[in-house]
């Protein structure tokens, strides 16, 4: 008995379709939504082609103030993993989005929820009662910890752990990516240490406490902030006092995130004889800072160049 060629073709197509439909879901990339571009960049390093990553905030945007737009709810509705910085950095918008996402996988306590402040080394944890008299203070600690490379590795490790938990078939890839990322970051950190060593102890000023982790890694001495208190714009009398303090200390640089108005910092830098540095604090904040290591590389290079002048 022979089978007609048309029937064979039909059967072949049917089997191919069935096979495609039966492909395990694990083959689909994990859908990861992060609050910041820094988390997104590290997630891409660890997840590679096994994850599809989207950041809610842009690299040029102040992560404290992001609009919880309905279109973001759609991304979260389908996400397998939601990753946030925590420590109330995203308190004004992330809880609203999560509540409206209708996705228990990524709600707080869900299997796909990640808060990296649980593993990060955190600064400025109040050891006493705090009030809003101290400005828009974060009562659980300074949330800008990703700017310390030590915490970059901790973030990577937790991503690897979570991805392996949700996608066990990819464990080998996640392990390899984690080890490769750590090797590259260690090598870069050693290079940055060497590059910054001559300037250790140099006095500098930053706009906001967001630079504390980076400047302490860089070995700089922070002699003041443009903001008198977190989130509170400076008064003229405060700026006069800051300029005087900078002159006395010999401050070399004023560091500002791209999303702050540079007019006041520029004035302060000019009057104090320092260099104004607009540095990205997140991946994508400058064209050259397109991944986590290149962000820190860019900031280290700009800072050391400014101080060397």
């Amino acid at each position: 008995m022979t089978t007609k060629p048309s029937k064979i073709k039909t059967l072949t197509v049917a089997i191919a379709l069935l096979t495609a439909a039966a492909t395990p879901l694990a083959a689909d990339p994990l859908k990861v939504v992060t609050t910041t571009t820094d988390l997104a960049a590290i997630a891409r390093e660890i997840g590679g082609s096994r994850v599809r990553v989207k950041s809610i905030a842009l690299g040029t945007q102040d992560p404290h103030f992001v609009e919880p737009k309905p279109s973001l709810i759609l991304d979260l509705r389908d996400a397998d993993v939601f990753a946030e910085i925590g420590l109330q950095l995203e308190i004004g918008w992330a809880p609203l989005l999560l509540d409206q996402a209708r996705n228990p996988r990524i709600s707080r306590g869900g299997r796909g929820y990640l808060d990296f402040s649980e593993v990060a080394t955190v600064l400025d944890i109040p050891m006493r009662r705090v009030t809003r008299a101290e400005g828009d203070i974060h009562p659980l600690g300074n949330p800008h910890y990703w700017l310390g490379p030590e915490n970059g590795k901790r973030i990577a490790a937790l991503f690897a752990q979570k991805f392996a938990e949700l996608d066990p078939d990819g464990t080998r890839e996640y392990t390899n990516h984690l080890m490769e990322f750590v090797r590259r970051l260690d090598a870069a950190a050693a290079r940055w240490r060497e590059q910054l060593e001559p300037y250790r102890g140099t006095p500098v000023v930053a706009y906001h406490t967001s630079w504390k982790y980076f400047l302490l890694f860089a070995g700089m001495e922070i002699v003041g902030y443009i903001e008198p208190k977190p989130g509170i714009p400076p008064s003229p009398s405060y700026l006069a006092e800051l300029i005087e303090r900078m002159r006395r200390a010999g401050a070399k640089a004023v560091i500002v995130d791209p999303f702050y108005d540079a007019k006041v910092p520029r004035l302060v830098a000019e009057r104090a004889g320092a260099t104004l540095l607009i540095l990205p604090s997140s991946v994508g904040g400058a064209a050259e800072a397109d991944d986590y290591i290149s962000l820190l590389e860019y900031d280290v290079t700009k800072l050391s160049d400014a101080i060397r002048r």
Partner: protein
Amino acid sequence: MSHIPGTAVRRIGALVALAFAGAWPVRPAHAQDPKPPADTAAADTTKDALAREIDRLLRDTAGVPLPDYPRAAPAQQPRTFQSLNPDISAIGELLADLSPQRAATLEDGSRFLMRETELGIQAIVDPFFRADFFIGVHPEEVEVEEAYVTALALPGGLQARVGRFHLPLGKINLTHRPEILTVDYPLVLREYFGEEGFASSGLGLSRIFTPLGFFQEVQVYALSGIEREEEHGEEEGEAEEAEVIERQRDVFEQLAFLGHLRNYWDLSSAANVELGFSAAVGSVERLVPLPCDPSENCPLDQPPPVQQTFETQAFYGADFTMRWRPPQRSIYRSFAWNTEVVANDTPEQLWWGGFTQAQWQLSRRWYLGARFDAVQTLEEHEETEGAEPAEPEWRRAASGYLTFFPSEFSRFKLGVERELGALASDDPWRVILQTTFAIGPHRPHAF
């Protein structure tokens, strides 16, 4: 150079390693699996390698020197509050009437009025629900403005809400009065529902859709009727002093229904628009003055008795909102324009009203806004049973606002308002200074 205390990091490392180990799926024993995958051993080795690497990363700094500053490892971080307590917040709103005319325009006739203290209590109930309570403390009353529980994770992408809440008839009605862009709700909401806007008790269900490639949300509500404080043109409290002759409501007179369709588009990373349509239908209580015979049941020194009746009314709304906020300058520049039209379909006629408002952010702390209001109303409310209704007239007003935020938690707003048209009073100008201050973690309103 200081280091994280060794005991702490060991504890974290062990915890994470344990958590990691516990996260692996349980595999069948080899005895029950005669043909284990060939790469089982390799996979185990891979898992072990990842576990070791994670343990090492969380245990020490692996070559990256720790900066020299005092800090605590996560396991040692003190908790500054008991995290299982609900978030408790309070918003205070003080109005100062700076109007030039002799008579003050505030509700109690004074020049300074602590109009509202809003107490918010909000928390996650359990893995399935969150609860929100907002208690409004006013000079002469305390009322539950909103009290509802939201089911966050129903099957089919549904979300449900049960309790008392503000309703999505348009967009501005969802925001509590102390937090809106202006001092008062628009005339149309005040005319239809009273000074506090449209709220009711019941059950709501919502679902998000994307069949056309953009965000759409449908919300439907079953409510315990539509609460109106006054009828068109009726003065507040006018009917309250009269004797009310009540009557029993049937089942349908006890219910109301509302639906809202929300459409949202991102035009760019900075700009977006939203278009919404609403419809509500339900039973509205009306108090109709009875014909009055002074010789019998109607003494001249008392208002005539009123008959409680219920009639079916419908409300239709359309809202349009455009926002612009460039991401890199988001804390300094923004613009929002919101226009809403609401119609009230009563047995007598269709009443129209609406407003348009815009707010421009001048700098980090200063905002400039304006609103134009229009609503159909009756100049004199002299309705009696069987009488022909009077012809409605347009009541109009324009207002401008300058707002200053010392911080995110306090706000001063200077408002200049003017009544327009034939219904304007002899003193059409009103100057109001509103001071709003918030303490505690008040959850922001939905976008």
